[in-house]
């Protein structure tokens, strides 16, 4: 019985390793989504907004870690990091847009005040 156990141990271990590492295709779509989201955030000016810049960096780090895992064929784990990366980048994009909108609103208010000032006798 002990011999049988020893004989079975190796294939079971191999099967376990296979299940953990492989069996999932490379997350090509998620890699593209993550990259697109980071690019979108940067184009929206996230690098010039401190809070947004932080999340872009996190997105970038998660993406890089995911790419390392993909190289090791740990696609399932990589997929989770890519999900995180995309979520970080989308948050950065929203922050950048909100910052831009707040500045636009401020400028619009300034223009109104300037106009009011110009009509004051």
């Amino acid at each position, binding site marked *: 019985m002990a011999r049988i156990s020893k004989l079975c141990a190796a294939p079971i271990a191999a099967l376990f390793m296979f299940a953990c590492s492989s069996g999932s295709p490379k997350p090509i779509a998620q890699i593209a989504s993550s990259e697109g989201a980071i690019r979108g955030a940067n184009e929206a000016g996230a690098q010039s907004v401190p809070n947004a810049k932080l999340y872009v960096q996190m997105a970038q780090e998660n993406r890089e870690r995911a790419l390392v895992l993909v190289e090791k064929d740990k696609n399932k784990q990589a997929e*989770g*990091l890519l999900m995180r990366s995309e979520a970080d980048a989308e948050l950065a994009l929203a922050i950048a847009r909100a910052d831009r909108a707040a500045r*636009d609103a401020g400028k619009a208010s300034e223009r109104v005040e300037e106009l009011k000032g110009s009509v004051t006798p």
Partner: protein
Amino acid sequence: MKISNGIFGSILLSLAVTACGASRPPAELVDARAAYAKAQASETASLVPAEIHIAQTSLDTAEREFKHDGNSGRTRDLAYVAMRVAQRAEVLGTLAVARGNAQSAERDREHLQTTIISDQKSKLQSAEGAIQEQNQELAKKQAELQNQRQLTEAERTARVAAEQKVKDAMDALARSTSVKSDTRGTVITLSGSVLFATNQAAILPGAQTQLNQVAEALKTQAERHFTIEGHTDNQGTDTVNAALSERRAAAVRDYLVVRGVAASAVSVKGVGASRPIADNKTTEGRAMNRRVEIIVGNDASAQN
């Protein structure tokens, strides 16, 4: 049996670990729940209902995963994503507020600009109206000035023409009678022997030509006043001479009036022998003193 006990023990341990993991949610899920609660409770949540719904769906997915697989890697990943989605929903709420503020300010600006433009247009129209009125007033004054200039020019021309006419008439008269100027004005002297028979006040037919010339000359000076003075020599009494000289002056006046000289412009005076111009001791002198003088005043108002 030994082996069976070992396998059973492993299974029990595994179940215990799993049960323990299932009861304690991962930090990511705790953070996601907090982030969702914060987003949902924010003042701006009502502005982004779709984003809040997406956050809720993300959190539900993570919760289901946790319920099914416990503290697995996928549970943590989904919870992390749910946290970010909730944070994003909150940020999008502030974005909506900022955009609303910008739009509101833009509307205010447009309204203000419209008001300013309208006000400026109104002021411009008022100014244009005032300018138009001023231009009309100016044009009116210019027209009046032009009329006055024309009138003045016409008057000047008429005056020059009238003066020339007077001069011509007086020059013509001077060729047949004595015309001179003194302090009283222009004095036309007509000889008494030409005009009247001795001691008579009726004008002789032979004098009419000369008197006609005088009448024509006086008619050119309608605005002036004429004084007709009768003069005699010193023969006879002063009373007789005064009466005779006045009758003769009146006779000349009547003739001139008949010839078109305005009666109101003429006055008569009998001077008698009081103002001789020659020696009464000689025949020639007395003849010269018997005369009628027509004085054309320098200024009609002064004569009146």
